[in-house]
């Protein structure tokens, strides 16, 4: 029995010894490897390998935008309000070498119920290489009407939309499902001229147009002209025309003109700038054989950049309604914006509205916009 114990003990010790020796060799070789690796790393640090220059992911660029607001209005049942207006989520990327896609999903607060509703703000595909300077867009998009409609409201220098815009196109503007074809028009003077033609189903909630139950669609055309006046100043003139079904069985025809002057000294372009933008909408709405309403509206605003982060905007609004040229609204507003960075801004706006159908009223608004993620740059 004792022999067995001795044999087991010797075997045990031998095994341990062999193992420990094996282990020490292993430890040594491991140490050697580490040293080698570290030396390599040190060498690598001296001349670093080319770094990856793009994230190795096919995820689209994503961002979330918050829009928090406060408002005051006299002559209202509830004068003060603080609310989260909208969360917008965007996903933007190339689809393949032929097209890119942009998705903007909005969860917005319904002004009357206070409840949040999700909606597709925009979702469209854009070609990047059609021949003959053509570009095709398909999906749901904000139509290329003038200077306010294509812009997401959070990017505008005022909190409320111009009265004329709201009266004729609603708070959401004209966004619709369909096709958009744009063409860079070659011209002997070599200035930027872009013709856009769009056909859509007809917007669902819009004061001027509606989605017709019969085969009537919304046809739209826009001619954008752009000139560099000097190195620091540009001028844009846009002409739009559109025709579509209204909520009678007849049609509404509209025309629009937009004129924008921008000044920004190239050298100090983050400190100073000036914009004067105006847009007029003309509507001819036929509601019955003998009932045609010709009405119009206009807004004009000036934005002056006081300092690197401070922007002051003054705006004048005049507007009829699509269904009446007798009703007239006039409004004056001023907005002050503080842009912390490209990703955060706070704006304060005061506005007074007079009309020939209700008493004059005053509004004050506050808006705080914040962006996380890679929010794409805005068009000029």
């Amino acid at each position: 029995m004792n022999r067995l114990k001795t044999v087991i003990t010797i075997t045990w010790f031998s095994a341990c010894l062999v193992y420990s020796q094996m282990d020490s060799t292993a430890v040594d070789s491991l140490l050697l490897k580490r040293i080698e690796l570290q030396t390599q790393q040190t060498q690598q640090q001296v001349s670093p390998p080319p770094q990856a220059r793009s994230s190795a992911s096919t995820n689209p660029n994503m961002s979330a935008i918050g829009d928090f607001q406060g408002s005051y209005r006299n002559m209202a049942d509830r004068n003060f309000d603080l609310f989260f207006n909208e969360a917008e989520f965007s996903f933007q990327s190339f689809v393949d070498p032929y097209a890119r896609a942009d998705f903007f999903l909005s969860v917005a607060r319904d002004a009357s119920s206070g409840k949040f509703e999700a909606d597709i703000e925009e979702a469209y595909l854009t070609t990047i290489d059609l021949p003959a300077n053509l570009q095709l867009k398909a999906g749901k998009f904000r139509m290329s009407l003038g200077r306010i409609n294509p812009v997401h409201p959070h990017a505008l220098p005022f909190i409320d939309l111009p009265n004329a815009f709201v009266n004729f196109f609603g708070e959401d503007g004209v966004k619709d499902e369909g096709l958009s074809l744009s063409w860079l028009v070659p011209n002997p003077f070599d200035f930027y001229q872009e013709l856009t033609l769009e056909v859509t189903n007809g917007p669902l909630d819009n004061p001027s147009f509606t989605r017709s139950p019969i085969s009537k669609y919304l046809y739209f055309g826009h001619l954008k002209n752009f000139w560099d006046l000097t190195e620091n100043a540009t001028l844009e003139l846009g002409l739009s025309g559109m025709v579509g079904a209204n909520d009678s069985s007849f049609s509404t025809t509209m025309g629009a003109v937009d004129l924008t002057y921008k000044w920004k000294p190239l050298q100090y372009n983050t400190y100073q700038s000036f914009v004067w933008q105006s847009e007029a909408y003309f509507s001819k709405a036929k509601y019955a054989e003998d009932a045609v309403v010709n009405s119009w509206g206009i807004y004009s605003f000036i934005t002056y950049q006081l300092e690197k982060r401070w922007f002051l905007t003054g705006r004048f609004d005049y507007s009829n309604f699509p269904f009446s040229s007798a009703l007239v609204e006039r409004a004056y507003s001023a907005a002050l914006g503080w842009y912390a960075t490209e990703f955060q801004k706070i704006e304060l706006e005061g506005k007074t509205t007079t009309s020939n159908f209700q008493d004059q009223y005053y509004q004050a608004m506050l808006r705080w916009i914040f962006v996380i993620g890679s929010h794409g740059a805005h068009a000029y």
Partner: protein
Amino acid sequence: MKHYFSLIIILLIVSVFSLYADSKIKVVTTLPDLKSITEEIGGDKVDVFAIATGYQNPHFVDPKPSYILKLAKADLFVTVGLDLETGWVPPLLNSARNAKIQKGSEGYIDASTNVPLLQVPSSVNRAEGDIHIYGNPHFWIDPVRGKQIAENIFQGLVKASPDNQNYFQTNLKTFNDRIDTKTKEWITRMAPYKGSKIIAYHNEWPYFEERFGLKIVDFLEPKPGIPPSPNQLVKVIGEIKRENIKVIISSPYFTTESADLVARQTGAKVVVLATSVGAEEHIKTFFDLFDYNVNKLVEAFK
């Protein structure tokens, strides 16, 4: 009828001229520095347009529609890359209707390819200000890295016009040789001031700092892209006094109010260096850029 006939003749002549003009490779670059290098390599075979001017902040350029016209006709597009132009190049390229110059195509030249980078962050957080996730993008303010930029542009030009490879190759060699000679000269001139501590307005000089052996101690911006705050200026004034710093460098597109304020408090000199070709009228080439900056600094350190 006669009028129509003359109009057709004129149009024909114009088309013939435009065909003639088409024989050159049309290149659009984001910055004038890339234009200068493209012209060095491409010689008379290229027609180059730079979108930004030399005195403009390259992070913030307005994507004016007139640039879309240039891009629509371009054979090559040269960009600094590393997200420097992320605020203005994507909307321009998206509207250019030109697949030749889209990212990933042969006509899209990323000047940063294979350039050894500095300040590549291991993590990115916007709370740190405007951090560039791929590394500091101001690498063109280093003559030696200019050689890699030239190599990248050379590769693009060869793809666009393989017949001219030898011509471009000769120009590339001339450019590289000249960079080597001039860099030695610049380094020699800066040698007495090697190790000098300076303050910069914005974090756009790490490559220049490394090349010429300067030491940037702090910035007037508390974080990249955030305007100078009183707290930061007080901190910088302390540093200048403590470390006996003589020079504050700034760029043409920043106002010098805060730099001047710090200078008045400390006696340091404010030197506005050129960040790009064209920052001053006489800075016409990539070589002029370093001649100018070295002259300015030598003068300030004296």
